[in-house]
């Protein structure tokens, strides 16, 4: 068992026993880990308010097989801007849950760590935007190797250049040409171009989807993610419920 300090983002935490917390965190150096913080609810000095979802911190951990032991935490940021807006809380929770569910334990993934950190940073300073969520999703799928094929037909392998009306199938693994895509989800070339731009632009807020493209990209990405999950995400159910209840479907606070 060796003790080390690592930069981490808390993906989720639950109470464990009388005073402990069971924490899932994404560590820059060691990937996704689960650990127990003994006495976390009692010791304000060692943990303070650090072990909260989507907080970014330096964790002192004892690495071992199974659950690692969390010895202490120094907060880098708790993203105070996110905590002022219900939509941003929901979206940050969604991003963390998505990483938790799609990323296997162990094995460093610094690219994904940077993506999640950049998304939380963006949410901390900007109002909730559906485009940013889709930007995060397509890049996450790309890093994890789950990205749907966008350059050529996932059915016959033909190039898609010059084709305007296309189809999409998550089970086929991507965009389909007119011949292969009969009965599949319709997608326009403009939406595919915007998704491409999301992958080539390394900055949140740089790609803005018009409403029709946002709806198409949303359906495409939701289906691409759902195919890798055994059950729906809790945070997605939460976000959908907020949208249904909010006037005009906006989940931002006034």
């Amino acid at each position: 068992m060796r003790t080390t300090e690592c930069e981490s983002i808390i993906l989720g935490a639950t109470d464990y026993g009388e005073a402990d917390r069971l924490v899932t965190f994404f560590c820059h150096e060691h990937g996704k880990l689960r650990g127990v913080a003994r006495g976390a609810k009692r010791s304000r000095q060692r943990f303070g308010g650090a072990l909260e979802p989507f907080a970014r911190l330096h964790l002192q951990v004892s690495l071992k097989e199974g659950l690692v032991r969390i010895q202490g935490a120094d907060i880098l940021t708790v993203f105070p801007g996110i905590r002022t807006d219900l939509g941003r809380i929901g979206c940050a929770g969604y991003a963390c849950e998505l990483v938790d569910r799609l990323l296997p334990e162990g094995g460093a993934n610094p690219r994904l760590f940077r993506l999640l950190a950049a998304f939380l940073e963006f949410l901390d300073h900007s109002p909730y935007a559906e485009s940013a969520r889709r930007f995060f999703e397509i890049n996450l799928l790309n890093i994890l190797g789950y990205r749907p094929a966008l350059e050529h037909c996932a059915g016959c392998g033909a190039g898609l250049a010059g084709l305007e009306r296309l189809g999409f199938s998550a089970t086929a693994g991507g965009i389909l040409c007119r011949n292969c895509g009969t009965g599949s989800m319709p997608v326009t070339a403009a939406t595919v171009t915007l998704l491409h731009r999301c992958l080539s632009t390394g900055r949140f807020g740089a790609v803005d989807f018009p409403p029709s493209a946002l709806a198409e990209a949303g359906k495409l990405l939701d289906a691409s993610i759902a195919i890798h999950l055994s059950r729906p995400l809790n945070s997605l159910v939460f976000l959908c419920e907020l949208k249904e209840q909010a006037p005009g479907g906006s989940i931002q606070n006034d």
Partner: protein
Amino acid sequence: MLHFSASLTKLLGELKKLPGVGEKTALRLAFHLLKSPANVHALAESLVEVGSRVRFCSTCFGITEADPCHICTGDRDSALICVVEEPQDMLAIERSHSFKGRYHVLHGALSPLSGITPGQLKIRELMERLERGGCNEVILATNFTVEGEATALYLARLIKPLGIRITRLAHGIPLGSDLEYVDLATVQRAMEGRSEV
């Protein structure tokens, strides 16, 4: 594995269901009870009494024996409602003797990650209570966790159209603490929420 009499095994099983009680603690408690039969009867009686008499108040959803509870029927300020997550939070505020209004217990907090949605809390009951009128201010006293903050933001959005004043508990440096030992997030919040002297 040790084998005890059937009744003792049953008692150990029940004790282990309590929070913070494991195998060893359950054994210690059980043997302590066996040594003092008078205590066993008193404990059993009070457990049965609690089970049959204690319930939730139909107005504030706090713990009570009489429905509505003494806080909801007493001469406390009915224009002031303090919203808390759990009955224990209500007791914490009562212990401070700093609040003379009434309460509403939500029995939880919204949690995007655990999938706890508004329908699972006593939010509809709170809104019905506020819509009946007579309340001038709602104090949101949910915890300062992500879940508590989400709940406060959600309630603020629901209550705002009713034209009722909405306030949130202050937060910052705990009394009697040294600034150098306070965590970064708390210092940030305290600095943002500083007040004039």
